[in-house]
């Protein structure tokens, strides 16, 4: 093994020694290819030959390992996988999904989770980023620190969170008791977070369960570092004088942010919104790590991905799992399209 490492290092050294010649050769090759593709360029197909050349690796891989499985999943969803002869059953798996209360409950959990995490994470990250932006000393340090959760092993993080939220004598409960409140069961509480916090005023079956609420908090904690780093970078490009000019004109921090910072950051915000929504629809790891099986108390943390996973790898219902997955993929496509339509237009470009 170390021998192979040595060979690799030797190869690198040889490359470094020959790099000038190699670069010249590469340039000639590129020029020749450019000439070739220029000659191939037609009126009707325009840059298509060059596009084909440049896209082929990515498209081949995505087609084989990204798209084909989707088709295959759609295909499998039409069969009953729990019989040795796998009979074709048409859309029965889909109609089963649509009539299963569990499916709808999982969808609701997914929706709670998406709605509950994304806006909060984005606002919080934006706030921290603007705070960090206002300090000169230690910005790099804080930025690294706020990024740490993103790279901490999820097992380690989830273990700590579970200990913090220990239903008997966890530190969080100790604090609550000290403040004169009742201790809570946190990750084991299937009743609504709103019910718990409103002291029973709001019905227990409305809103996410307290357990799901804990997972949302975990996810906000886990992924805000990523967003802070991106926001902060976005902020640093904003010309200071622009904001200062606004402030001189009598605008407060809030107004300056609204009039100057937000429009300039809007493409960043939109990008983060789209990507993190897709990720939130597919969230799995934090659910699994926090509850041990993903389902949580009375299945109140079972989102669609956990539901698919359980059907695949616990109950062996492959066809049914594929049907639910197809429905999920359709849901994500629709969701993304809606976002594009509603928010995409408001994004400010230069």
């Amino acid at each position: 093994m170390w021998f192979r490492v040595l060979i690799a290092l030797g190869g690198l050294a040889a490359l470094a020694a020959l790099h000038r010649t190699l670069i010249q050769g590469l340039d000639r090759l590129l020029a020749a290819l450019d000439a070739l593709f220029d000659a191939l360029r037609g009126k009707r197909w325009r840059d298509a030959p060059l596009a084909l050349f440049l896209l082929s690796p990515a498209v081949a891989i995505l087609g084989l390992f990204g798209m084909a499985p989707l088709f295959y999943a759609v295909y499998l969803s039409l069969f009953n996988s729990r019989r040795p002869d796998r009979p074709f059953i048409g859309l029965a798996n889909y109609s089963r999904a649509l009539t299963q209360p569990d499916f709808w409950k999982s969808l609701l959990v997914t929706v709670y989770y998406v709605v509950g995490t994304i806006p909060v994470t984005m606002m919080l990250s934006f706030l921290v980023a603007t705070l960090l932006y206002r300090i000169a000393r230690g910005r790099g340090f804080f930025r690294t620190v706020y990024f740490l959760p993103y790279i901490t092993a999820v097992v380690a993080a989830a273990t700590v969170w579970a200990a913090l939220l220990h239903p008997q004598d966890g530190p969080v409960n100790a604090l609550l008791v000290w403040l004169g409140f009742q201790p809570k069961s946190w990750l084991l509480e299937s009743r609504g977070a709103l019910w718990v916090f409103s002291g029973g005023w709001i019905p227990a079956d409305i809103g996410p369960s307290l357990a799901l609420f804990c997972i949302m908090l975990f996810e906000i904690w886990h992924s805000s570092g990523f967003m802070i780093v991106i926001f902060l970078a976005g902020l640093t490009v904003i010309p200071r004088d622009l904001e200062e000019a606004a402030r001189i004109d009598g605008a407060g921090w809030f107004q300056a942010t609204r009039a100057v910072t937000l429009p300039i950051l809007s493409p960043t915000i939109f990008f983060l919104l789209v990507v993190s929504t897709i990720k939130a629809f597919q969230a799995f790891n934090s659910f699994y790590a926090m509850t041990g099986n993903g389902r949580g108390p009375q299945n109140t943390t079972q989102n669609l991905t956990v539901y698919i996973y359980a059907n695949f790898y616990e109950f062996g219902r492959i066809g049914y799992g594929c049907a639910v997955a197809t429905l999920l993929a359709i849901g994500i496509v629709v969701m993304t399209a809606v976002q594009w339509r509603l928010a995409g237009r408001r994004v400010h470009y230069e």
Partner: protein
Amino acid sequence: MTRKAALYALLTAGALAMTFPFVWMISTALKSEAEALLGGLELFPERLMWSNFVVMFQEAPQFATYFYNSFVVAFAVTASVIVTSMFAGYTFARLDFPGRGLLFSLVLATMMVPFEVTLIPNFMLINALHWKDTYAALIVPWCANAFSIFLMRQAFLGLPADFFDAAKVDGCGHLRFLVWIATPLVKPVAVTVGLFAFLGSYNSLMWPLVVTDRDEMRVVQVGLTLFSSDEGVRLHLLMCAATVVILPTLGLYFAAQRYFLESAISAGIKG
């Protein structure tokens, strides 16, 4: 002045909340087995057990191999992702050809399929190709992804159009423009893409587990599962291993940090 102090106080409080689990992970790695098993949030071990790290490598001597595999795979994936997404990103941003929008949507659509779903068909494909227990199986499926292509496309879109026009006047074609002029300009985004590709590959567990049967082909994340069983988790060793596994990621983050920052600038992400 007080406002500034308040600002720092706020940020420090936040920072403590963010780092606590990380610090706890390291402190648990240094506890004795019984102390670690008692659970709780005690940060200071009774006695610092540096020997845990030795024990961990003794009990799981395969870890050296796992590390080697993880590095080979993660670096190969990183390099490939950078190349494929630069090519594809440039094509979608700057070339003009029929069906561009449709193809781009199809690429984005691959983001919308949950990984759990693609596992079985992809495994069957790997099996049909006789790629099981090879680096190819661990690397090739991850050599391109929609997210990176999207990011690179945005970066290329962000370059002023006159750059290309000027180059064209000088007789520079697309490929030479891409390699010699555009690449240095989008380097920060490319580094970000690379970092995420590395993180994604290095942290994956399920796929390597499914496509490898032989221990010699396993990766570090599989190694982490060695310390848990149905009867219990050997928490101190698990945290040792987790700490060791995170180190390269941390190092890479520091190395990439400079670019990483600038990157989101130009990834300033224009649609």
